[in-house]
């Protein structure tokens, strides 16, 4: 099934690249490679396989497929989450595909091609009593401090705990998603918040340990991030992505990582609500 879609994709590639190859920015064409940097601590989007230490993930697979269709290689590098945006601005990376959310505050200097539905999601240890998300009001909730989630939690708490007359959620910072799950296991926090895209993976890694509470409480998208002045590259990648969705290569990658439910019908530009 995948081989069929791949060969179909190659056929599309053959027709499309012959017409569009001219639009790939000159430096990239010359180098024959895309420079991409990821924060490889975010399974299943991008992480190092503990067994082989290889860089793997949904974003890695999507990027590899894109690069194939563009006729270039990829030179991967890794960086902390907070360095992703600076890496784009200093041109260390051509674009960012690294589980980064499309947010209005980030659109000052960048454009997002949204490719995956996401949203912050509460989860607890399986034996926790919490049933609804409002059971978490007044409790300690942790999340990675370098993301937009602390702000999301505060907003949600104001909108849902205050009106119900319950105390606000106590936010507890963590360094990364593994640190956060660690603190949850030790009981330093009662619940945690992570992007909904990470939870199916966490649950297969440690089956039965965690339980999701409520629905993702803010609908959003993961986006591929481009510099504002890089419209040409952005359009080329959007075209390839559209093709991948059309011929099923995109769905195949998502299904491989258990995130078929987070698929989008087509790539969108700066479509996240806030």
């Amino acid at each position: 099934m995948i081989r069929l879609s791949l060969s179909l994709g190659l056929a599309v590639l053959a027709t499309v690249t012959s017409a569009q190859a001219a639009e790939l920015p000159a430096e990239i064409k010359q180098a024959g490679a895309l420079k991409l940097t990821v924060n490889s601590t975010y399974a299943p989007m991008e992480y190092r396989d503990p067994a082989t230490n290889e860089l793997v993930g949904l974003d890695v697979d999507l990027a590899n497929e894109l690069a194939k269709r563009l006729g270039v290689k990829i030179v991967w590098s890794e960086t902390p989450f907070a360095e992703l945006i600076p890496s784009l601005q200093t041109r260390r990376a051509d674009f960012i595909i690294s589980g980064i959310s499309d947010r209005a505050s980030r659109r000052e200097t960048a454009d997002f091609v949204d490719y995956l539905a996401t949203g912050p999601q509460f989860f607890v240890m399986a034996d926790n009593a919490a049933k609804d998300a409002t059971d978490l009001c007044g409790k300690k909730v942790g999340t990675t401090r370098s993301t937009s989630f602390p702000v999301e939690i505060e907003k949600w708490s104001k909108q849902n705990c205050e009106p119900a007359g319950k105390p606000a959620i106590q936010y507890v910072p963590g360094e990364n998603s593994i640190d956060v799950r660690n603190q949850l296991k030790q009981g330093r926090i009662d619940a945690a918040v992570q992007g909904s895209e990470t939870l199916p993976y966490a649950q297969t890694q440690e089956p039965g340990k965690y339980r999701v509470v409520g629905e993702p409480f803010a609908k959003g998208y993961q986006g591929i991030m481009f510099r504002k002045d890089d419209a040409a590259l952005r359009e080329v990648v959007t075209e390839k992505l559209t093709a991948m969705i059309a011929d099923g290569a995109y769905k195949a990658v998502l299904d491989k990582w258990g995130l078929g439910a987070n698929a989008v019908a087509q790539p969108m530009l700066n479509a996240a609500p806030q």
Partner: protein
Amino acid sequence: MKPVPALAEGFPDLSGMRIAREPHWFRWLSAALIVLVLAAIVRAFAGGQIEWSYVSRFLTAKVILEGIVNTMVMAVLAMALGIVLGVVVAVMRLSPNPVLKTVAAGYTWLFRGTPLILQLLLWFNLALVFPTIGIPGLWSARAVDVMTPFLAALLGLGINQGAYTSEVMRAGMLSVDIGQYEAAQAIGMGRLRALRRIILPQAMRVVIPPLGNEFIGMVKATSLASVIQYPELLHNAENIYYANSRVIELLIVAGLWYLLVVSILTPLQMLLERRFARGTLRLAR
């Protein structure tokens, strides 16, 4: 008896001549080169992608100032813990008791042999090994409740420092002339009393200058506690740039503050050194 002969001929009197000053061409040249390099660096920083308005805006932000206070509080407390542990362990190391000696050597080996950041992470996540801690029968508590970022940072930094301080203390104690110890013994003092009243006070004079240096290092080492959520300077600066993406501007803010603190402490430490060196020089006959 022969009379003292007159001075020999052929050696002129140079006492009226002055020694000419050397031009030191190379020094001038290298100084000029260094000034040029520095000017180029300053220009790069001024013209680069740095928004200096953010630097000035956050330089005295409340969160940053709180961070500095927390940094200094932790530095002082952890250093104090390190010194206390260092003295105890050094005395144990010099004891004739092989059990004490081995425990002391083991402690030093373990805490100097692992990276500080690793130790901090282990302390913070202690609950994974000991979910409950306490004294059986008297008091118990959840490890996560006891091991706050503050306590984890204090223990991590202090116990690590103790391992290094114990070596400094040991060297200091061994540097005291053995005759001092013998004189103390000759008037009937036991080992511990002699250490406390005679050896340690003299060792401190030798040990305080390097400890001053270690303190300056400790001020910067506190930045590692950012990964266990202790709200020191770096942690707070990071939180700001996590929100506004101004990474390098906030790092410059933090860097400037660290530089300021160290610039104040360094001449103080040199004063300390000179005062104690003067003491020991005075003692030398």
